[in-house]
């Protein structure tokens, strides 16, 4: 019998603490059910989401090095539940590992608050922890309500799959042009994965304020693509993709001239449904497009 308890430092990201409380609830509920121990990094700051990086790259590196420090203190891998957090922490981690002079300059700053970045914690997304450490066979063994009646469209989100050179160390060498990890999870839960062209495309979130037309069209396109391929829902590991696709369906309908209605679920929400967790435990009331089938 395997007695090893999987234990990670959880970097929640800001969205799980703000506009997607359902992501926080469902992550905690699923981890508990699967016996995965997540220790929340309450000291962590925002990852900068690539926007602080546009303004002040050095500051973002110092802040993310600090974030990683707290996982190192626990001696655990740093696990994220947001693609953008994952990418920005990963970029910082790799830059600091590759450049000794930069590491020295960042550590000089961290020394002011009694911290030192060592580079001993891996940065990983919860999706890939489930795939690589927990395993899909084991996940299937926990399924109480197989999702066999559902066509589930996987939506990967850019920042878990691109650029492969940065991501490979963290995502089991998933190919950005033909990713398969979400399909593996969906199938492990007994669901049917929808094949559609937009699954590895951009949702437009990061230009939502700066280029709203582009952003809305990207969201709309992904949504209608999934609908046209008979999806009952979309599942995504990224709360930012989730926000754009869940909140902006009315705007997307208007932009593309078609009725759009498609529930968007976070990865742990879909897993939780199959594990028999309740709508309340999964925070389904927070989803704007009601997943009526689960309520």
């Amino acid at each position: 019998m395997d007695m090893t308890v999987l234990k990670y430092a959880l970097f929640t990201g800001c969205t799980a603490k703000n506009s997607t409380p359902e992501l926080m609830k469902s992550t905690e509920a699923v981890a508990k059910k699967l016996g995965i121990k997540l220790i929340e990094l309450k000291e962590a700051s925002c990852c900068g989401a690539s926007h602080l990086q546009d303004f002040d790259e050095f500051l973002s590196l110092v802040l993310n090095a600090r974030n990683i420090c707290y996982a190192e203190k626990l001696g655990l891998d740093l696990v994220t539940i947001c693609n953008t957090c994952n990418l920005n922490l990963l970029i910082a981690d790799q830059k600091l590992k590759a450049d000794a002079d930069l590491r020295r300059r960042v550590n000089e700053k961290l020394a002011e608050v009694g911290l030192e970045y060592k580079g001993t914690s891996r940065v990983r997304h919860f999706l890939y922890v489930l795939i690589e450490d927990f395993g899909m066979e084991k996940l299937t063994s926990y399924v109480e309500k197989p999702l066999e009646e559902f066509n589930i469209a996987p939506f990967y989100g850019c920042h878990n799959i691109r650029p492969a050179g940065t991501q490979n160390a963290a995502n089991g060498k998933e190919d950005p042009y033909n990713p398969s990890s979400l399909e593996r999870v969906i199938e492990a839960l007994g669901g049917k994965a929808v094949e559609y062209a937009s699954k590895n495309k951009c949702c437009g979130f990061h230009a939502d304020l700066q280029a709203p037309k582009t952003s809305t069209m990207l969201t709309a396109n992904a949504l209608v693509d999934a609908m046209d391929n008979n999806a009952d829902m979309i599942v995504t590991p990224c709360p930012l993709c989730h926000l754009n696709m869940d909140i902006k369906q009315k705007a997307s309908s208007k932009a593309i001239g078609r009725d759009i209605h498609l529930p968007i679920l976070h990865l742990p929400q879909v897993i939780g449904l199959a594990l028999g967790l309740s709508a309340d435990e999964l925070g389904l009331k927070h989803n704007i497009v009601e997943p009526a089938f689960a309520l």
Partner: protein
Amino acid sequence: MFESKSKKVTFKVFRFNSETDYLPVYKTYEMVVESHEVVLDILNRIKWEIDGSLSYRRSCRHGICGSCAVKVNQKGVLACKQNLFELIELFGEELTIEPQNIKRAIKDLIIDKADFWGKYDAVEPYLVAEIDEHPACENIVSHHSAEKIDEADYCIQCGSCYYSCPSVAYNENFLGPAALAKTYRFTSDERDSAKTERLTNVNEMGKGVWDCVKCFECAQVCPKGVDPIGKITRLHTQIFAENLAESNVASRHAVGFKHSIEKHGLLDEGELVRYSEGNIGVMKHLPEAFDMLIHGKIVLPWDMPKSENLDEIKTLVDSSSTQKFD
């Protein structure tokens, strides 16, 4: 057992003649592929042995002229560089070869790249400097200085990034990754004297750096390792460093992260949108904000969570900031 050195593959090739055809067709070719063969080998064999009318661009055959870029199963590749066994491993034994942008097809895999070249021209892709026509000695650029532009200088104008960019697909004014990477190549060249004009050009909303959706398609597809989005990020920071950022929704959005981190450690999403859009601009988000509010997705200001050890974060923001924005 030795691995089989050849594989049977079904190629579906986009065929279209803009002068005579109303719609394109995908012609199927069953071919046996050898392990050393690249996409261009197959196109050549189709043209030379099966159908001489197949049209595609090719020239150097060494991954440096940039003319043979196509898409295979939506992955942008240089036909002369992309090994077929790698594609078969990735996509299986049915491969669809298409032009970079089917809407711009002239004949089969040949597209009209006028849009790409137009954007390229618009960033003045050449050194702007007072040049002494008869210099007495060489103009030496330090190794360190040359290193800054090396990567961006590898661009071969194949258009793979441009025709993979979703922002280009929905905004015909967006300069796109290649032209922006080229801009960086000159804004970071110590000999160039047009840095301010170049940064002003790409700082323009609707066409410049702020319209990048940060999808990393360009960095992924580039066959030469230019990393266009990395250069776009550099352009953003140069715009701030040169004090050229105007106070608009894009610049305030970037700076707003710092304000929020300083105050809460975490991001105050509502305040970020208000600060970015301004008190009037934020009104257009009210319908969505209302939906969010009734679904418990908005944290009210007095409930905004704060990171533990916030004093550390404040100390670091104070000591490690390298940019200013008023």
